[in-house]
């Protein structure tokens, strides 16, 4: 990637973060922390990796994405809106009566959403089914799914990992947003899942560890996923991220897992993101 491309992606990710704040402020609820940590990887995925058509969201040949950590819906919606699946202004209807933007992703109401999720551990299984289906069709389709690190407490995830490996789903990329926090506290105090890299290796994955908030590191990770095609191994990204990334008072604060910002907090968060955006924009114009 050129420096200009990296800057463009960072600007897009910053707009995605503004959308997350707009949506959760407007809803007075939702999950900003785990949405902000995932903003970079979903931006990279939808703007650089996935073959999707905003004019034809149901195109059967498209790549698929399943947000297994469905509570990060504000992030997915914001990315889809930025990508052009629906108007950005609709983000402020999140969780409102009559809105198509349900609290957790609904594949039947939101253009661009490939699977309804929200109950942890379930999306990854559906992604496995999609990867099997793509292979059965003989189609060149990649399937991506994003899990939370807390989500890995769910036994169903490990059932799905077994199946992905057993069926040699090398068209499947399982991404874990390792932001180290879950509702009751730090992941290593609530329920230890480390050493994750060794566990994923042992489950037969092509395991890649990277900084999930770095566009250049994400680029390298997706190159390695591409190269894994034909290897017979599914890929797992362990994305080290910062929960609440981009909004100072939300960063690494477990409290910001599942509540919306009030008016004052909203202004502060938006000011920070606008400032970040201006810096990136100036740099891009240089």
């Amino acid at each position: 990637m050129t420096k200009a491309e990296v800057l463009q992606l960072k600007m897009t990710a910053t707009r995605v973060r503004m959308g997350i704040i707009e949506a959760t402020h407007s809803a007075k609820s939702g999950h900003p922390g785990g949405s902000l940590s995932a903003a970079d990887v979903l931006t990279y995925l939808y703007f650089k990796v996935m073959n999707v058509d905003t004019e034809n969201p149901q195109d059967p040949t498209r790549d698929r994405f399943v947000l297994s950590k469905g509570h990060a819906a504000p992030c997915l919606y914001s990315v889809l809106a930025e990508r052009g699946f629906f108007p950005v202004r609709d983000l402020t209807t999140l969780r409102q009566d009559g809105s198509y933007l349900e609290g957790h992703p609904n594949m039947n109401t939101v253009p661009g959403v490939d699977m309804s999720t929200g109950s942890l551990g379930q999306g990854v299984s559906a992604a496995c089914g999609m990867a099997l289906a793509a292979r059965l069709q003989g189609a060149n389709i990649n399937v991506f799914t994003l899990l939370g690190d807390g989500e890995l407490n769910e036994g169903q995830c490990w059932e799905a990992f077994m199946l992905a490996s057993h069926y040699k789903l090398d068209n499947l990329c399982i991404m874990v947003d390792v932001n180290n926090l879950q509702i009751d506290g730090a992941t290593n105090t609530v329920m230890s899942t480390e050493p994750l890299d060794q566990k994923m290796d042992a489950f037969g994955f092509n395991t890649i560890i990277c900084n999930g908030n770095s566009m250049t590191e994400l680029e390298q990770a997706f190159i390695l996923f591409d190269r894994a095609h034909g290897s017979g191994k599914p890929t797992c990204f362990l994305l080290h991220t910062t929960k609440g990334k981009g909004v100072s008072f939300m960063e690494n604060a477990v409290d910001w897992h599942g509540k919306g910002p009030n008016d004052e907090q909203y202004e502060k968060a938006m000011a920070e993101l606008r400032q970040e955006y201006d810096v990136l924009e100036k740099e891009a114009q240089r």
Partner: protein
Amino acid sequence: MSEPKMIATRDSYGRALLELADAGCNDLVVLDSDLSVSTKTCLFRDAYPSRFFECGIAEQNMIGVAAGLSTFGYVPFASSFAMFAAGRAFEQIRNSIGYPHLNVKIGATHGGLSVGEDGASHQCIEDFALMRAIPGMVVICPADDVEARAAVKAAYRYKGPVYMRFCRLPVPVFHDELNYHFEIGKGEQLTDGFDLAVISTGLMTGEVLKAALKLKKQGVAVRVINMPTIKPLDEDLVLRAARDCKKILTVEEHSVIGGLGEAVCSLLSEKLPTTVRRVGVPDQFGHSAPAWQVLADYGLDAEHLLAVMRDMIKAN
């Protein structure tokens, strides 16, 4: 009259999948969770291995995988015992299939008390209740081989989630395949009568028929209604029976909580209050014993049903 053939509806399930595939249903895929020899999906597996997905002893994941396959236009039949499909994977069925209304069929064998010797841990008597409660879910429990195979084919043609309960116990085949037509949401009146209407589902219909035949010889006409679709319920048929017969008996190999009996009561209490007696498993677990013995222990055999029917008719 020759003795009727005895066939377990789980065998019908396996055969029907094979018949569909043989007929060119190329979008049919089958999943199982290490029970394919018992659920009889092994017939499909051996004939169409590339469209059979063994998921191991991991029913929750199997349901999600089936959901994912269906989003590509395949028609997955996910198979396990009723206990582990409707029971263990309830929330996966609810959220990954029911909520998005995906075109997945759940083939649940070994339903009810008639698993027999395996005992209470495997005797699923709650599956109708669990599956009925999921919005948009069709719930089917066929009575014999002919009905079971027709139901599987109807489920394949129907667009949307369907739960089907099959059983391990071989039971008499009383339908004539040449004249039988299955339609989701339709019950069938097997005998005419005005003294009492008996509405039953699954293996119980065969027992009800035996009891009704005895009563007929004694000059008592009982209306026997077979109700293979528990949801959506054939409301017209139930209401007509209530109007004509004034008294209704429901019979099912299921808890009296949440099954066919309660579905009938819900309908009648709102539209035509009628005396209803429910025979099923009272609020308790089953136990180990040969299948027919367990059924008899809970009054789910022709002899006990005959007594209940007589009792209800007498109470005029």
